[in-house]
């Protein structure tokens, strides 16, 4: 009997199996045919193993980088890249991460159905990544495995409605509608950009980025494989020059020329990310459509929260300005870290592109071209220092040569980590219950306000107010991206 239980335990504690079972449930929920269910389940199982294999490739490229950086500067050098860190984390925390990802979707649907926060977080890849981070932080806080999954799922579900909600006031200005939201782990940094743009707008004299003539031809920036390989090559060679050719050729490259060695190492890093992305794509292929289908049935007026490129077409110039301003923020921050002698967060080009570009679009909608620049710069500083502060919260994972890159990992990770430092597991549990309570209190307060407004519209003065409000809504409905701001 015990032997049977041991075998079952062996099966059901393997992350690849858990992910495959989640896909199986998703496929069955969509009432797919037997062959589709079998195909999808096996594909997901294999996809997860592909992802894990990519972790090995990324680590072989990152370990020499870490040693080289340590030798050259005597501090830890960290590459913020979600794929690189998540693939490594999944080797130890895979089961918990997969279960948090799964139950988090259920909590998301429950919260969206019963509160005013109608967001359904459909960017499965980043949801999976942040589930991995919650698994790490709760594991480091000492929770038992079942408790990691329980509290992690609640944290995940709350996260999935709060992050889109933070950006939504600014999203309305970009898209001219309240029906679509932004779902990305860059959310906090993108909302910060909107806020900075509003504060620095002054009397609103800054024109829209879209009235500028801006050079085209940077389309190659959009090929992730190429941009990761090129940007890592630049970083590897610069660090390699500081570490010195003799050190690299004696200690790391087995005598190969150090430049050749470093360029191939950078290409290796990109190869690892490529493999991980392919694995993630397969893992999500069966799960996200099921989540979308079920949420559409259960949540009335659901607002899908979608990945950042949905805003790129609203303001193409702001995309480039935002990337550049965010990247400059990353470089300035790195210089500050070198001066202060802390661990150094290398600017991650992919993170600065994705979240910086979205920050540019949001900043432009809130405060014109000045808003786009200052807002995206603020995002760039945020996604440099937040990962730095997050490192100690992650325990052993914080000692790796890669880390989580976007603002939400820092903000939500530091909240959980701060609670843990202040009052251990009890504080985390109280904090999570309180955050759910706040969502419901806000729902009741806003509902009461709406009722009061509806009742007040029966008086003549109120009708005037209502007319003003309608006018306001009408103006908000024109996409600001194409409207010059004066």
């Amino acid at each position, binding site marked *: 009997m015990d032997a049977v239980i041991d075998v079952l335990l062996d099966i059901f504690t393997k992350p690849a199996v858990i992910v495959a079972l989640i896909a199986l449930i998703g496929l069955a929920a969509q009432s797919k045919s037997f062959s589709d269910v079998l195909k999808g389940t096996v594909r997901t199982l294999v996809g997860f193993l592909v992802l894990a294999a990519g972790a090995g490739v990324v680590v072989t490229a990152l370990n020499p980088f870490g040693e080289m950086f340590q030798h050259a500067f005597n501090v830890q050098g960290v590459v913020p890249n979600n794929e690189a860190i998540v693939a490594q984390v999944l080797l130890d925390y895979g089961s918990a991460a997969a279960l948090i990802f799964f139950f988090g979707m259920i909590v998301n649907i429950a919260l969206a159905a019963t509160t005013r926060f109608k967001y359904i977080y459909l960017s499965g890849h*980043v949801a999976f990544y942040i589930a991995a981070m919650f698994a790490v932080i709760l594991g480091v806080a000492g929770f038992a495995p079942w408790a990691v999954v329980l509290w992690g799922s609640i944290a995940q579900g709350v996260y999935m409605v709060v992050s889109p909600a933070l950006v939504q006031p600014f999203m309305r200005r970009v898209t001219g509608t309240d029906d679509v939201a932004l779902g990305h782990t860059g959310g906090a940094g993108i909302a910060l950009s909107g806020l900075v743009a509003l504060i620095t707008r002054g009397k609103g004299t800054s024109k829209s980025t879209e009235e500028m003539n801006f050079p085209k031809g940077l389309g190659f920036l959009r090929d992730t494989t190429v941009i990761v390989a090129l940007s890592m090559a630049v970083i590897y060679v610069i660090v390699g020059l500081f570490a010195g050719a003799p050190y690299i050729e004696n200690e790391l490259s087995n005598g190969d020329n150090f430049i050749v060695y470093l360029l191939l190492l950078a290409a290796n890093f990109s190869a690892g990310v490529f493999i991980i992305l392919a694995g993630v794509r397969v893992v999500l292929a069966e799960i996200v459509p099921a989540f979308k289908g079920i949420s559409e049935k259960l949540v009335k007026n659901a607002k899908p929260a979608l990945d950042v490129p949905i805003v790129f077409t609203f303001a193409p110039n702001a995309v480039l300005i935002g990337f550049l301003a965010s990247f400059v923020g990353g470089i300035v921050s790195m210089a500050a870290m070198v001066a202060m002698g802390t661990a150094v967060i290398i600017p991650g080009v992919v993170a600065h592109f994705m979240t910086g570009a979205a920050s540019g679009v949001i900043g432009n909608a809130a405060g014109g071209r000045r808003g786009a620049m200052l807002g995206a710069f603020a995002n760039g500083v945020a996604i440099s220092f937040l990962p730095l502060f997050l490192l100690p919260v992650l325990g052993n994972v914080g000692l790796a040569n890669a880390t989580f890159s976007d603002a939400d990992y820092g903000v939500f990770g530091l909240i959980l980590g701060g609670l843990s430092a202040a009052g251990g597991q009890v504080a985390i549990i109280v904090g999570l219950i309180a955050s759910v309570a706040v969502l419901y209190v806000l729902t009741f307060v806003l509902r009461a306000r709406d009722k009061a407004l509806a009742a007040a519209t029966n008086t003549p003065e109120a009708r005037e107010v209502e007319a003003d409000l309608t006018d306001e809504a009408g103006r908000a409905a024109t996409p600001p991206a194409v409207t010059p701001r004066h």
Partner: protein
Amino acid sequence: MTKFLAVCSTGLGSSFMVHMNIEKVLKELGISGIEVDHADLGSVSPSSADAVFVGSDLAEAAAGLGDVVVLTNIIDINELRAKVSDAAARHGHTA
């Protein structure tokens, strides 16, 4: 079988959404026999699919991938419906 491919830079988020929306629109239009998938820009070649769907921000980078359908606004389902219907007709599929 005719194949439509939605493409974005990582092939994870927005292309997946466009992929799901294309399937939804094809179902609404009553068109069958078209396989839909999504991919990252770096993995796509002109022989990958009969029609490639991208947001206008990727139009330049995706040029040369054969029948490229550029979406002005990738969250506009009406625009997608019209362009999917046209693309399906171009490749011999009508409702």
